[in-house]
């Protein structure tokens, strides 16, 4: 195993990529994006073997692709919190759930909130907030939740933050489950709106059958989010986060407003999580509390950590693997938790910095190891 890793390292893909001429990088990137858009129709052997619907019991390929991209969006958002700002957020599913519930609560004609609005303002029974308006609502809701959760807790350091956020994820789900007259309780909300679009073959553009359209929509949003996140990384904001991660007190003395930047990281992560949740809820057209269990939070964290915290490409790889592999090998379903645990342990042992690590993160982990060894030697 370690020989495989060594030979992989010998390829020095990261360095080669950095040194490649700009036109090459642009063309390669465009090809990857084009291929990603083509993926739902992938039918050329041997590549078609990556499809998940080769046997009749398999999951719909385009739906799987959609889910992968939604989780990628969530992972890129969580990477801002964990990878860039270095804050361990174990309740990310809370923001994801808030995004899904916002679009359901305000956009579905059957949600208690919309019904209350209908009777209050004498509106027709079909009236609901249009989908396009639900997007800013969902982002605003999750962003506000992020700020409300972050404002008191980001003054805590280290493990305390993880515990508080862990609680937050559960609070959102349990609240959604128990507030029957607002969220529909355990029964959930149906008729969640879909994005507008021209009708084709008597069906609306975004429907439950043609999943590839959802996939393309999510892919466009993912590209946008990745672009914005990399803007943040290579700017004063990214530097401030890095400085806070390395030495918070020294950063403060150098004029970095630590709390402000941490809160921003939290708010940005939260709104991206909300956006991912919105896509998920809208595609399902049905939202219920059990879709937002705590293990989804851990899955998101695992995507970031296994892929390579702090590196956007790494996080995308992590999200892809952790979503795709369980779907591809559905027939081994009962082995899933075992394989998942084994994979986590293997990655932590062989490659603690993640599969596609951020160079800096890798160096930081190496430093910590040396410090721990020195401390052990002293003791």
């Amino acid at each position, binding site marked *: 195993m370690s020989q495989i890793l060594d030979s992989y390292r010998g390829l020095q893909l990261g360095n080669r990529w950095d040194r490649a001429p700009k036109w090459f990088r642009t063309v390669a990137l465009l090809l990857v994006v084009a291929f990603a858009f083509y993926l739902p129709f992938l039918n050329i052997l041997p590549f078609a073997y990556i499809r998940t619907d080769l046997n009749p019991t398999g999951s719909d390929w385009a739906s799987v692709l959609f889910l992968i991209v939604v989780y990628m969006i969530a992972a890129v958002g969580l990477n801002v919190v964990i990878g860039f700002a270095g804050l361990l957020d174990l309740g990310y599913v809370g923001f994801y759930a808030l995004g899904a519930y916002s679009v359901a609560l305000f956009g579905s004609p059957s949600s208690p909130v919309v019904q209350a609005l209908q009777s209050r303002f004498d509106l027709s029974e079909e009236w609901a907030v249009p989908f396009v308006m639900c997007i800013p609502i969902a982002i605003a809701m999750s962003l506000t939740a992020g700020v409300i959760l972050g404002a008191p807790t980001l003054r805590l350091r280290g493990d305390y933050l993880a515990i508080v956020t862990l609680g937050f994820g559960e609070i959102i789900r349990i609240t959604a489950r128990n507030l029957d007259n607002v969220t529909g309780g355990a029964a959930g909300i149906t008729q969640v709106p879909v994005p507008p679009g021209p009708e084709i073959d008597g069906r609306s553009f975004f429907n439950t059958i043609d999943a590839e359209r959802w996939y393309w929509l999510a892919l466009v949003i993912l590209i946008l989010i990745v672009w914005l996140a990399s*803007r943040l990384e290579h700017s*004063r*904001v990214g530097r401030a986060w*890095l*400085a806070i991660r390395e030495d918070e007190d020294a950063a403060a003395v*150098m*004029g970095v407003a*630590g709390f402000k930047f941490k809160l921003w990281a939290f708010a940005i992560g939260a709104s991206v999580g909300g956006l991912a949740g919105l896509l998920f809820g809208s595609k399902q057209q049905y939202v219920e509390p059990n879709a937002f269990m705590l293990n989804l939070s851990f899955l998101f964290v695992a995507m970031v950590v296994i892929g390579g915290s702090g590196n956007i490409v790494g996080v995308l790889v992590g999200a892809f693997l952790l979503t795709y592999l369980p779907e591809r090998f559905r027939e081994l379903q009962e082995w899933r938790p075992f394989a998942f645990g084994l994979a986590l342990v293997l990655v932590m042992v062989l490659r603690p910095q993640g599969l596609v690590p951020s160079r800096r993160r890798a160096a930081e982990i190496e430093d910590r190891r040396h410090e721990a060894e020195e401390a052990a030697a002293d003791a």
Partner: protein
Amino acid sequence: MPEHEIVGAEELKDTSDHDKIAIETSGAVGEVLLEVDHVTLRFGGVVALNDVNFDIRRGEILGLIGPNGAGKTTCFNAMTGVYTPTEGTIRFKDQEIAGTKPHRINHLGIARTFQNIRLFPEMSALENVMVGCDARHKTSVLGVLFRAYRVRPSEGELPKSGIRRSFAKVFGISRHTLEERAGRRRSMELLRFVGIADRAHEVARNLPYGYQRRLEIARALATEPELICLDEPAAGFNPAEKEDLMGLIRRIRDLGHTVLVIEHDMKLVLGVTDRIVVLEFGQKIAEGTPEEVARNPKVIAAYLGEPDDAA
């Protein structure tokens, strides 16, 4: 302590353009810039600073000396917001700063270095300095994300090639881009100023000890402080390097900064400072020009112990 490589003095020459890094000051040389007013600081029963009282005047190099444990660094920490004084106040430009958050104090115009070097170890030297420059930049997080704040660029700032050039002419250039460029240029200039530009792109942790010390100074200068506090900048230096450092401190003053320096090395302090404040056991025991302080019997006693025949 990191391994100590001896760096030849000729390598550390200042090759910078001083006009590009000099700061604008808001007052006249000689007026009081910072006032430490009867500051007492207690940690439980320990009195770290006891009724300490001195001021720093604009444009001077003030030395703060004293034996180990005299409260020099504590005094620094009180001035830069790390500790809040138990009693007394600290005023900077007639503004009360005791109890203000460290990053706010930095924005007001005080920067410092650390006795035990505290760089951002995995950032390159240049990036370390750029973090300092960011303290003066105005782009917000949303400004970085959406770059909606556009500035009409001057001829020199326009890109050379066709499409980008016309784009910048029509839509302007985002303030973020301009600040980023300016920060990079200024940081590079500062690295030249302290004489370590040859290793600008190396990760801070890999720099030799002398470079790290200088990098700390460059990073502090990047925040454009009116008052820069150097905490034992010569610790671990050999005589040649100390000589170099004295020159650097004077050049820092010439850029328009006021300098407060804590130092053990009497030769360096006496050679470079305009005025000296001496602390012992948390109390000020002397203040004056280097000559006065060097002759002061209390100072001599504090540094060399009481002479036998005085008893």
